[in-house]
Each structure stands twice: as C-alpha cells, then as structure tokens.
C-alpha cells in the first residue's frame, strides 16, 4: 500500500466527531450527507428516536453547510435574499428562514444566526455558496465565507439536554429562550450554544473549534452518562422532525434550483411557511411572485394528516373519495408516530380539495404480498408533537 490510498479521492470525508461516532456505530449503518460519512443509525433507530423524546441524544451537524456573512452590507444582503425580515433579528438570536427564486419557488431553508451587528452565520442542509454569491451582486462591503469545515457542530436534543449542559458546567444555560445564542468559556476556549434544533423538543446546538471537538464530545458524554445520552442518526431525526411538522428537503420539498419539471418545486405558501414571508419589507428575491400568490392563494398546500389505522402511508396517492374518483395529492413523508400513537403524514394536496374528504391509498406487504387499503385522513392543524417543555424558559431538567 505504501501508505497511499488509491481510492482516497472517492472516499467520503469524515466529520470532526467521527472517531467517537465510529466506535458507537455498532450496526455499521452509514449513509452520506454533503460528502461526509453520516450515520443512518448507531444502535437502533427506534431507540435513538426515544432518546430524543425521553432522555437526550446528539446529532452530528458538521455536514450541515455553514457560511459566515459579514460586513456593513451583510444585513441588507441577507434581507434581500430571504423572505423573512432579517433587520428585526437581534444580536445573539437565530431565525429560521427560507429563500426563493424570482418565481417565488423555494431554494432551501436554514437558520440565520446573528453573531454581531455586522456578522451572520447561515446554516443550511445543502451547499448554497453559488446562490449566496449571486445574491450578493451589488453589495460591496460584504464577505461570504464557507466555514463548514472550521466549525464542529453537534446538536443535543431531548428533555434532559438542558440538565446535561448544566452538568457540563454551562451556568445559566437554562435561561436561554428558544432561538437564543450564548457563549460560554469552555476548555480554555469559547463554546457557542444556541437553543435550536430539528426535533420539536427541548434542545440545543453546540458550536466549537474543530480542534476541541473530541474533547467536547467526551466531556458531554461524561456529563450525560446519567441522563441517557446517545448518538442518533438520520432515521431518528426524520421521525422526530416529522412529528414536529418540520419539512425535509428531497422529501417534503424539492429545491427549486434542482427541480426539472415546471412548478414541481414549491413556494413558501404551499409549504405553509407564509409566516416567514414579509411582503411589507423592501424588495427581496421572489417578492413579486409571492405577493401574487398570496393574493390568489397557493395551488397546493402541505398538510399534516392524521390517518386512520396503522399502515404507514409512505408514497401514497391522496384521493377525494374512498373510491378514488379524483387524485388530489400525494404523501411526502409518513410514519407511525410512537410518541402520539398516531399514523401521521405530511402530504401535498391541491388546495381547492382541502375541504372535502381526503383518502390515502396505502399498500403494505404481509409476507411479501402487498395488500391495499384506503384510509380516511383528517387534517391536523397543530404539529403532532409539541410539548410545553420545548418552549418553557427556564428549561426544565427532564
């Protein structure tokens, strides 16, 4: 071998926490995210899901793309790019935001951290440096930097997450409100903590220098030993986020810049993210199209469905009647929810049929032979899972 790996160029990259994660990935259940080796699950997806709902777990968000946008024009540039009013975002606060094409179609969603008056961090699922540069045309005092590799980020989610951070020595962390950011002296350096996450439960995201990643992991796992800490992967995340009603790219929406067919992508209104669109602010990408859509109403609506029976409606076509008279939509993600004991789904349904009956056509194999069933669906207005502890400040110990 001579120490040279001839396949180095095509191997997945490893995240800053990988050595620890590899030791705990007993099932060798690896997938990939943005070129990084990434766990689908470590031990048992359902167990990991329940750590999020019952104790706490960590989720490696190193592969998430992170961009630092700084300079005198940073605020104006971001405000022009995303649909939300970024000028209202205070320092040390985080905002969930989406950005669109001129046609008002959703490119991606992400969180914007205001780190200082003139310095922001954008964290999002897919790379978007090209779009950021495009959006920066005309702004001069501006620096856009991809900082993905230079930050080690770990999400800590679940009802005991605050107790673990307190045990870790982060005094006062319980007073962070949802979407707050705080900095703590830690390991001779600074640990940034935001009360954010993708699970709909109490949770935090930890941001630190990569050199300290493993040391932080060890300290966190020592502090969390009595609080059920466990790494969780993509499968558990997907369960938790669906219960919380959060959307996932490539499942509930297709990124506009990667969409082939006309209007097979989505608008914020279709995704029920109208609350993120500020039509009163000055020009932003997609404003004219969105104003028009706001006026006439979206063609499609992403709804939360509570489906009778216990057959998960994955990939189901949605109809307006049990006899499938007209197809009116499709399920984008579905699961049996262990926490609420419900058969839940997100589905895109043509808005004009929302008031009528909604039926899902579900197939389920039993001993390999598929069986078909029509199941009545009810639209759920609220997220399936939304415990008060997710919002309570100060945060509780469990």
């Amino acid at each position, binding site marked *: 071998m001579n120490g040279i790996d001839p396949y180095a160029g095509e191997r997945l990259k490893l995240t800053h926490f990988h050595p620890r994660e590899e030791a705990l990935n*007993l*099932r060798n259940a690896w997938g990939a995210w943005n070129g990084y080796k990434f766990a689908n699950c470590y*031990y*048992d997806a*359902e*167990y990991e899901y*329940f750590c999020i*709902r*019952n*104790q706490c777990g960590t989720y490696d968000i190193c592969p998430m793309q992170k961009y630092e946008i700084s300079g005198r024009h940073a605020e104006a540039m971001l405000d022009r790019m995303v649909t939300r009013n970024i000028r209202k975002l205070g320092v040390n606060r985080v905002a969930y935001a989406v950005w669109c094409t001129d046609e008002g179609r959703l490119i991606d969603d992400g969180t914007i951290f205001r780190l200082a008056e003139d310095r922001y961090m954008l964290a999002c699922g897919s790379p978007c440096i090209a779009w950021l540069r495009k959006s920066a045309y005309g702004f001069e005092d501006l620096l856009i930097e991809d900082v993905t590799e230079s930050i080690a980020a770990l999400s800590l989610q679940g*009802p*005991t997450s605050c*107790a673990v951070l307190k*045990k870790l020595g982060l005094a006062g962390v319980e007073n962070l409100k949802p979407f707050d950011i705080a900095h703590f002296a830690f390991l001779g350096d600074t640990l940034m903590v935001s009360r954010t996450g993708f699970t709909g439960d109490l949770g935090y995201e930890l941001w630190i220098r990569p050199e300290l990643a493993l040391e932080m992991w060890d300290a966190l796992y020592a502090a969390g030993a*009595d*609080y*059920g800490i*466990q790494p969780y992967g993509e499968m558990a995340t997907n369960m938790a986020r669906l219960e919380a009603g959060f959307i996932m790219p490539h499942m509930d929406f297709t990124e506009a810049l990667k969409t082939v067919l006309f209007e097979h992508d989505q608008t914020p209104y279709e995704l029920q993210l109208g609350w993120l669109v500020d039509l009163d602010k000055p020009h932003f990408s997609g404003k004219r199209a969105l104003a028009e859509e706001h006026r006439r109403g979206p063609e499609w609506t992403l709804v939360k469905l509570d489906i009778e*029976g*216990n057959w998960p409606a994955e990939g189901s076509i949605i109809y307006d009647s049990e006899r499938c008279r007209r197809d009116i939509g499709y399920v984008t993600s579905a699961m*049996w929810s*262990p*926490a*609420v*004991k*419900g058969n839940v789904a997100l589905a895109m349904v043509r808005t004009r049929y929302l008031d009528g009956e909604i039926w899902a056509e579900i197939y389920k194999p039993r001993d390999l032979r598929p*069986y078909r*069933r029509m199941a009545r669906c009810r639209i759920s207005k609220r997220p399936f899972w939304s415990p008060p502890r997710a919002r309570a400040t100060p945060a509780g*110990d*469990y």
Partner: protein
Amino acid sequence: MSRYDAIVIGAGHNGLTNAAYLAKAGLKVVVVEKNDYIGGAAVSRELHEGWTYSNCSYVCSMMRQAIHRDLELSRHGLILVPYLGTVNFGNGDERLFSYHDDQAAYLELKRHSSHDADAMYRFRADLTRYSQLIRKTLMRTPPDPVGFRPRDIREFVWLAKKFWALGEKEIYEYVRFFTISAADFLADYFENDLIKGAMASPGIIGTALGVYSPGSAYILLHHVMGDVDGNIGAWGLARGGMGAISKSIASALQEFGGEIRTNAGVRKIRVRKGRANGVVLENGDELSSRIVVSNLDARRTFTRILDREDLPEGIYEKARNFKIRGSSGKVNIALSGLPKFTGLPDSRYINRGGQAFTGTLETMERAYDCWKRGRWSDDPFVESIIPSAWDPTVAPPGQHWMSNFVQYCPPQLADGPWTPEKRDAFGRTVVDKIERYSPGFRDLIVHMEVRTPHEIENEIGLTEGNIFQGELTIDQLFFNRPFPGYGQYRMPVRNLYMCGSSTHPGGGVSAVCGANAAREILMDLRRPNTVPEDDFHDE
C-alpha cells in the same frame, strides 16, 4: 344524595377507561376509589423522597394503541418508551442477551445453540400467527355460545372465518396450544436449557402454575402478544411510571366531565328488585345511579360487596370458586447506583434492559414446588427491570430503582398468617438471590418496598394478590370469563356490569376490559358508541 348515570367502583386503569368512555358519551359518571390515590395496580408512588416506584405492574405492552390514540393519552401526558432486551441469568455463569437487532439476536442464540438459533425463526412465526388471531379478539365482546342472538351468531361466524383462514393444521395446533404446558410447547423448538428457561418464564408470570403445568403455554402467549408500536412481543415503560397511564386516562375522563372520588371505598352495591341502583360507601354515604360498574375482581365483587340474597342461585358459589390464586410478590428497591452483574460485558445497553433470573425449567419448577407447600420459593424466579436507566423522572440522576417481580409467593403460608417479619424475610430471599449475581448489590440499597400477596390484596384489593384478577386458564377465558354465561360484561344482577381484568380478555395493562364493557353498556343504554375498534384487525 347525588344521582349519577353510572358509578364505577375502583379507579384502576380499566375502571378509569370505562368511565372515560361513558363520560365521552355524555353520561354523568363517578369513579369511586377506596385509596387516597388512583391507579389500582397501574400506580406510581413516591414512598422514599426522590424515587417513584411503579409499585405493582411495572412494564406494559398490552395497552391498546387504538385506546391510547382515541383518548389522546399522549396529549394527557402519557409516553410509552420501549426498552431494549432482557438478560437471562442461568444458574451458573451462562447469560443470554436479547437484542432488537435481528443479526445480533441470531448471533447471540447461536452462541448457545445453532439449533435453537435456527428454530427461533419458526418459533417467532408460529407465535406471531397465534398472537395475531388472539389479538383480533381483544377489543371484541366474546360471543355467547348458547346465546343464538344474531350478534352472537355473527361473531361466531367471524371467528370461524378467521380460524379457517389459518389453514387446517392450525386448528389442531390452537387446541393443543391452549391446553399444553409452556415446557411441552417449547420442547418442540428448543434444546438449550437456558434458552428454554428464558422463553418459558412468561408462561408462569402471575399464575399459580408451573412451567410443566398444562395451560401455561397460553399464558406465555398472553405475555408476548402485546406490542409497542407494532413490534409484537416488545415491552415498554410508561414515562413517569405505570401510574402515568392511570393519570392520563383520569385526565381524559375529567376532560369529558367525569368525576373521581378517592377515599371512597364501597361497602355494598345497592340492589332493589333485582336491579343495581347505587352504592353505599364505607363512610355510610349513598350514591344512586342507573347502572353500577365494578372494576373489582369477580370474587371480591360477588362475595364482598354484594349481598348473597341479591344474587341469583349459584353465583355466589361460582365467585367463591373463581380461580384467583396469588402466586407472586413484588420487591421495589431504591438504589444509590446502577448495580453491576457478573458475566455481563461493560456495555452501555445490556446492563440497562431487564434482568430475568430464570435459571432452567427445573429451577422454576422447584420454585413452584415451594408455593404448593405454602412457602415462598427459596430460589425464586425473579424478573427485574431498572426503569430509572430509561426514565429520567423516577429517580435522582445517577441513582436508580429496581423493580423485582418474584415467583412464587403464596397468599397463605403453611406456618400461619403473614407477619411483617415474614414479609421482610421474603424480601431478604429476593435480595440474596440478586446478590448472587451482583456482588455488592445489598450495599446499594437505599429503600425497599416488599409486597407479598397479602400486601397486594390489602392495599389495592386484588384477591389473593392475583395480578390478573383471576387466572388466565382456558376454563376462565373468552366467553367463560369470569363465569360461563356472563362473558359479555353484564352480570347476573340487572344494571350491574364488570369492567376489570376478571372479564375478557383478562389481565394486563391493556385498558381493553374497561373499553369493551363501556361499549356494551352504551349499547344497553341506547347511546351512540364512543369506543374505537382495534387498529389491528387486519394487521
């Protein structure tokens, strides 16, 4: 004097479920409970500061999802968390781990016996097939075999169809299955003693039978036919303890306008002209109602709170002879740390599931011999779990509590009545057994609650401390539960119903008995049904 549509006696989880569905239908309902706390055997109490025990029942898998979902128990604070596998301890150094992961489970069995590892697939398929049929009957009222009402006939036809769909061979197998012992059943699959012991233990839990007693095979099935989120055979913990189940149902009941009265034991069910029309409480208060529902066991209902004169001929005798023998004890132990067991790897998962001190079939049968002679087992079968390893709400961080279910322990001792000294000696026997596998265990003990059948009967009113409100043998199941002719929740006195585990489908924290009884009551009262059908009728 208050007037209710329905009085439910006993705030166990079935009584609360029954009342919740009646209240949901708009009835004016009160649940009367003798204790100053609710929950019956699905109860959590803080007996030592900082520790919340599930004092009686300790794990759950029978709880019907259809009811959980319909009563929105999650919104009322209930979350059921499945726990990972159990370690079975042999008499020596042998250990059997169980894993959720299919590959890991296979390799572990193979470590003990290649034969048994292969046979496990057939065992699981057979057991799943049996379970699926029985599960379909859970949320349905058993047909009366001599009723000949259209509804009974319809129900029999339905059942016959389900049977035929299984194929000819299975008809024979079912009959065998209901009558054979757990040991005989397992002999067809396994050869390894540790594996057989591990698989047989659900066949004796809560029952005054041994692993070699006919009928124990069905009890095995009764314990494994439950599920957590569709994983048949999985077990879960209620976050906050088993009392969280009762509390969430009570919360649903109260939201529907139902009332709960604690410290309100019933002295007598009032019967006038052959109809139940209210209750007399221990304190002399009288409550009147259209109907009365007893969540007490059949023996207690008909021999303790009904006048023999109010009963039709033969019922008193049936109740007196109702098989409800106590066989188990429970030892709840608060611990200053997580106990370590010999022969276990230092794994972050294995030491956190359950522990079953099963030994072999022989060990368990010897334990049963003691019970027959009116003694507690000197080498008991103990099924343990450490809920605090999963549930951050039931013990201080880093400290734990261990639930130990113990067989056998007789309701009456051969050498005279139970005394506090004998109870403590029973507790010591259990601790000694655990100490054998966990040296130093005794030093971790912070507090202990020892419950023999005597305490269980006195505290929560289960006759002889029988956890199922009557044994789950074929003579007392389905349309024969509690008595032949009374399998449809209506009792021999008009306007009197039963809704506890003495009725179909029997014991377990399932909420089914209460729900099924409510469906029958609403039918009699000509009210629209509020009780859901099972989600699993076509699994």
